[in-house]
């Protein structure tokens, strides 16, 4: 299957500033791909390159298997940019109608799609109102409707929930998840780490124009830095606790265990990325200590983010 977005060593300078430095990543079909980075890291420039607004100085950019410089490549792409690009003096219906015409939808299909989108976004009652009277949340929903009205395969969303109230954010997130379930590929640039953690399966983190990490979110959380493992035991008395003699030291001697302590009937371990929890549980069991529960704590996206950006933002 064709890779949906493929950036290969893309560099771009604006004036004397090198905004993108050999940016390389790919987005697979069906991904909800989170694109993270501090302000000025190069997120919007990357989106502009993907959408053919800025030609790269070097490197290649492809979407849906075609070079981004071809205008017709964007027929199957929907987008919500930082500025929503809606026409304030036109109604919601007319805004959608205009883009339907641009994408060449025949009239019967066009009306069906517009009605469907207005229904999905719960904007049907306000369809004939001018967009200038819309709240920020309604505008974002309308921009999403416009992005999807031609049933694109790929959606590129630049901060789709920025300045939207919490209710609106939940609605927009739900719409994105629904789209993903319908097989759409979504490229989501966001500052909202919680949002990315909730809905994205893969991420890339850009900082100062360079991709610092890229991959499956769960794998990154497992692989990045230390993991905390808490093993709850059946030990109740001091006599039973004697069976622990030497176990803590034995566990600390393992190459992937960075610390181990016994506290409140529980073993608290910190492992590095390669740690094997099953081996630890086996070592505990060999000493005839009952294991009640194993709680694995993984590094959060926030921790990954601040680790990579070194808290610069």
């Amino acid at each position, binding site marked *: 299957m064709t890779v949906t977005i493929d950036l290969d060593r893309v560099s771009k300078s*604006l004036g004397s500033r090198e905004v993108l430095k050999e940016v390389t990543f790919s987005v697979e079909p069906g991904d909800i791909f989170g694109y993270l980075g501090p302000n000025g890291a190069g997120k919007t420039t990357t989106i*502009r390159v993907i*959408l*053919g*607004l*800025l*030609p790269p100085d070097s490197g290649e950019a492809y979407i849906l298997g075609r070079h981004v410089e071809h*205008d*017709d*490549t*964007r*027929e199957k*792409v929907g*987008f919500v*940019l*930082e*500025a*929503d*690009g*809606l*026409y*304030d*003096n*036109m109604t919601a219906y007319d805004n959608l109608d*205009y*883009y339907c*015409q*641009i*994408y060449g939808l025949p009239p019967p299909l066009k009306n069906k799609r517009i009605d469907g989108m207005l229904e999905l976004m719960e904007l049907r009652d306000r369809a004939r109102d001018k967009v200038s009277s819309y709240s920020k949340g309604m505008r974002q929903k309308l921009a999403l409707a416009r992005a999807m009205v031609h049933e694109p395969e790929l959606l590129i969303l630049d901060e789709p929930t920025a300045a939207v109230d919490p209710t609106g954010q939940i609605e927009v997130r739900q719409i994105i998840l629904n789209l993903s379930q319908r097989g759409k590929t979504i490229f989501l640039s966001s500052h909202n780490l919680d949002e990315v953690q909730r809905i994205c399966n893969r991420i890339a983190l850009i900082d100062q124009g360079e991709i610092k990490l890229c991959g499956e979110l769960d794998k990154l959380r497992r692989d990045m830095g230390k993991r905390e493992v808490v093993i709850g035991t059946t030990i109740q008395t001091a006599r039973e606790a004697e069976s622990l003699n030497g176990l803590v030291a034995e566990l600390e001697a393992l190459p992937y265990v960075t610390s181990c302590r016994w506290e409140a009937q529980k073993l608290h371990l910190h492992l590095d990325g390669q740690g094997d929890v099953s081996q630890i549980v086996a070592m505990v069991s060999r000493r005839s200590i009952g294991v009640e529960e194993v709680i694995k704590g993984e590094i959060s996206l926030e921790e990954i983010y601040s680790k990579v950006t070194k808290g610069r933002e």
Partner: protein
Amino acid sequence: MVIAKKDLRETLRAKAFYGSVGIVIFVMVAIVAGLGRNISALIEQGTSPAEVASAIQTLMGTTAFTLSLIIMLLFCMYTNAYTLIMEKVKRSIESLLCTPLSLREIWLGKTLAISLPSIVLGLLFTFGGIAGINQFFVVPELGHFIMPGAAPLVAILLVVPFIVFFFASLMIALQLIIANIRWISAALIGLVVAVMFGLSPPILKFGSASWSIVFISLGVAAALALVTIFLSRLVTKERIVLSSKG
């Protein structure tokens, strides 16, 4: 055509458009009345009907050519002139550039949205004026209609629309390239002044009812086209996006 259609709809909904039409109607009535007095004076001089008809035809040709050019350029300037700069300010142009439409299609659409209504209204008012002069001043005295000669008719129907089309195209190119709205305003006014003053000496020398002025006007249209072609090399998506606000 999608862009042109949408912008035309916007134009027809704008109050400024009807304001411009009202001003032009007012000016036209004044010009027709003034011209009528000149025609009445010509007739009262008592020269032969053939000489009077010839003099009226020349006068009408000169007036109609100049009037059509001024009306079309003014409509260009005041009805939809800043359509693109507003799209840049609100950054809707960025979204438009992300669609499958090519930059040339967007440019052509915007150019047609400005030039088409200007040309149609310019022709309507010009021929409306000619009909008015004939109806109120020529027919009652001479008993028949007098139209401008072949040269001014060709100029009004073909050459002036060409000038207006390339003028609009150049206006759009400037808005695509330049970020500062004041610079654009200055450039547009400079362009109108250049076209009008460029044509004034030959009009004074040859008279605007002559074939010479048709060819000189064609030259002006060609010059505008050449400048547009030259500027087209500077019109890139990157320049448009980076010269937009935000």
